């Protein structure tokens, strides 16, 4: 079913112009051309049909003019047809890359079966879009095709009524880097198979003052939840400002690369020089400062890419929407030291109040290497479902402007012909 949509519904206001010919028609009905004659009796006898034809033509002309204006209004309103065909229900797309890499991996088969069961229909994301029926993973399309372009084309031409899920290969960051806007929201199920890297563990020490116990609790809980999603070993400890150094180190016996110690400084004063820590993160709440709404977009968003260093002021890692620095990295040898220029913790208005902030924070604490290892488990993790919102108004559609213009031209020609006709006849 091809539904018609209006891309600019406000353009329908132009329909008000319909009143103009209507009023003209009602208020100045043509009385006909005036001809002076000598013997009216002859004309009186001939007037049996005097009213019908002029009226009929007038009404026809009125209808034509109204239609003309209505078409113009629809043109302004951007009348368009929705996609060529419609797929009801949820749809699953499987990229050949995904199938090629899956091999006999049981986890992949399970994922495919689950996704297939959840969807109403499944297709290969390959030229022709053949139906994907079997989860035994026998790719009938060659791997290596550009799935993204295929998906964009598919979404632009077919109207999907339900959710669209894509089984694809790659890690989230890779997709984020090359992701153009798709015409609609898509749920990505990403997986990056490969050699199973040892999972890192992380040990977070939260140093807080009594006033900021709440913040520490929120941050700790968020980090634990985010890490558990990725089956990461996490230990969160909380200490007061004067006693944090007495806390004994975590368990030993793991290689340094797989154990990350993080100090989150929610206390007063400058960041301490904690040499034993891999990363030190502090915040500087600015209660009075005016806030620019910072949006943490769909994870992983481009805003988390490192920004160029600002001279003399450390390296700005995160920025908010207005371009102001949110996270600044201080240069200090191997140790990563960050200052978050807002409040970490209970902050409903700020970045930290957003749902995906824990992931971003965890990624920051882990570092990119450990994060990559952690995302290898993404396949089974529902939080890796990437849903990119579509560009506004870019629903799949075919614009009807040329057809509308053609119809208008035809109507205009007809209208001219009809309205000029009496004058031509009389001029004979």
């Amino acid at each position: 079913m091809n539904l018609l949509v209006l891309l600019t519904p406000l353009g329908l206001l132009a329909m008000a112009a319909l009143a103009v010919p209507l009023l003209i028609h009602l208020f100045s009905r043509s009385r006909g051309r005036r001809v002076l004659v000598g013997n009216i009796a002859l004309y009186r006898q001939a007037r049996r049909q005097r009213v019908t034809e002029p009226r009929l033509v007038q009404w026809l002309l009125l209808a034509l003019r109204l239609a003309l204006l209505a078409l113009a209004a629809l043109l302004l309103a951007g009348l368009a047809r929705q996609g060529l065909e419609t797929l009801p229900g949820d749809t699953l797309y499987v990229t050949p890359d995904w199938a090629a890499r899956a091999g006999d991996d049981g986890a992949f088969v399970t994922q495919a079966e689950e996704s297939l069961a959840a969807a109403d229909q499944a297709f290969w994301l390959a030229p022709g879009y053949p139906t994907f029926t079997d989860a035994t993973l026998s790719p009938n399309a060659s791997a290596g095709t550009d799935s993204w372009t295929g998906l964009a084309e598919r979404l632009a031409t077919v109207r999907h009524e339900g959710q669209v899920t894509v089984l694809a290969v790659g890690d989230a960051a890779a997709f984020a880097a090359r992701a153009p806007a798709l015409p609609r929201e898509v749920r990505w199920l990403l997986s990056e198979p490969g050699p199973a890297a040892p999972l890192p563990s992380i040990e977070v020490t939260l140093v807080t003052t009594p006033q900021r116990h709440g913040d520490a609790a929120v941050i700790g809980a968020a980090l634990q939840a985010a890490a558990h999603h990725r089956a990461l070993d996490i230990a969160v400890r909380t200490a007061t400002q004067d006693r944090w150094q007495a806390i004994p180190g975590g368990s030993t016996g793991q290689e340094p690369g797989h154990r990350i110690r993080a100090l989150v400084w929610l206390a007063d004063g400058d960041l301490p020089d904690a040499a034993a820590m891999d990363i030190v993160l502090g915040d500087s709440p600015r209660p009075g400062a005016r806030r620019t709404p910072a949006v943490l977009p769909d994870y992983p968003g481009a805003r988390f890419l490192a920004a160029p260093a600002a001279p003399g002021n450390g390296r700005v890692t995160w920025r908010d929407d207005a371009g102001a620095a949110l996270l600044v990295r201080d240069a200090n040898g191997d140790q990563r030291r960050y200052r978050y220029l807002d409040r970490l913790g209970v902050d409903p208005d700020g970045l930290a109040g957003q749902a995906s902030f824990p992931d971003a924070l965890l990624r920051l604490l882990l570092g990119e290497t450990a994060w990559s290892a952690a995302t290898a488990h993404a396949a089974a993790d529902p939080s890796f479902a990437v849903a990119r919102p579509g560009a506004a108004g870019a629903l799949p559609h075919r614009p009807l402007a040329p057809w509308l213009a053609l119809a208008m031209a035809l109507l205009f020609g007809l209208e001219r012909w009809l309205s000029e006709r009496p004058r031509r006849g009389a001029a004979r």
Partner: protein
Amino acid sequence: MERFIDPRTLARVRDMPLVARTVADGFMHGIQPSHQRGVGIEFSQYRAYEPGDDPSRIDWKLYARSDRYFVREAERESEIAIWFVFDCSASMAQRSDQGAWSRFDYARHLLATLAYLAVGQGDLVGFLSLSSEERHFLPPGTGDRQWHRVLRELHRVQPGGRFPDTPQLESHMARLQVPGLVILVSDFHQSADEIHAFVRRVSTTHNEVAGLQLLCDDELAFPYDGPTRFEDLETGETVLVSGRAAREGYLAAQAAYQDRLVRSLGLLDVRLDTVNVDQPMDQAMYAFLERRRKRLDA
């Protein structure tokens, strides 16, 4: 006689006598016999005395000067009077959309021409213009001066009102009923029966009436297509019709009207000649006079 004067050209000439002469002379050329000469009032020429001539006609003063006998010749006075009756009702003002002149203007020039011809033949010419608003009467006379009097009358009249009812014309009727020819120039559009009544009254056994009906192209062809509002020149009544749909009805009504008119006038022994004012005037006149000549010969 193949080439006639284009009505547009003629209409551009504002000089009525010139138009009349142009048309009449062109028309006369070759077909009109010379003037009959004889006893009369208007001097025409001298000729040498021949045996058999009345000696009383010898001009003795000329004999004194030239010592030869000459006889005065005068144009013979016509026995009949020609009355030009001009219908000046408002309906005469109708004209075609693309026409050169209105029925009224055409009629004026036609009358001027006919009067010129008549005067040239030495006929007695009288003139009567008729409308319910004003009437102009010119007693019969002969000669160029009479023609100029007719021209003056033609310049004075304006179309307006309706064709007058017969009772209004009683004072003129008696004068029209002398032996002669009455040429009625009109469109023969009447609201009741007034033209018929007039013709009936004028047409007597020793008096011939000829009708010249002037119609224009638009009346004959009905070239209207769209919605058209017709307004009567005399009554102001309007009728809104669709041109295309009404054409057939109009043409039928027009033909029926014409047929009725010809028959009713025929009963009165009045021959009706229809002239299209958008056609060349000399052509119409030639046809009119030719028909008259044939009728008189027959």
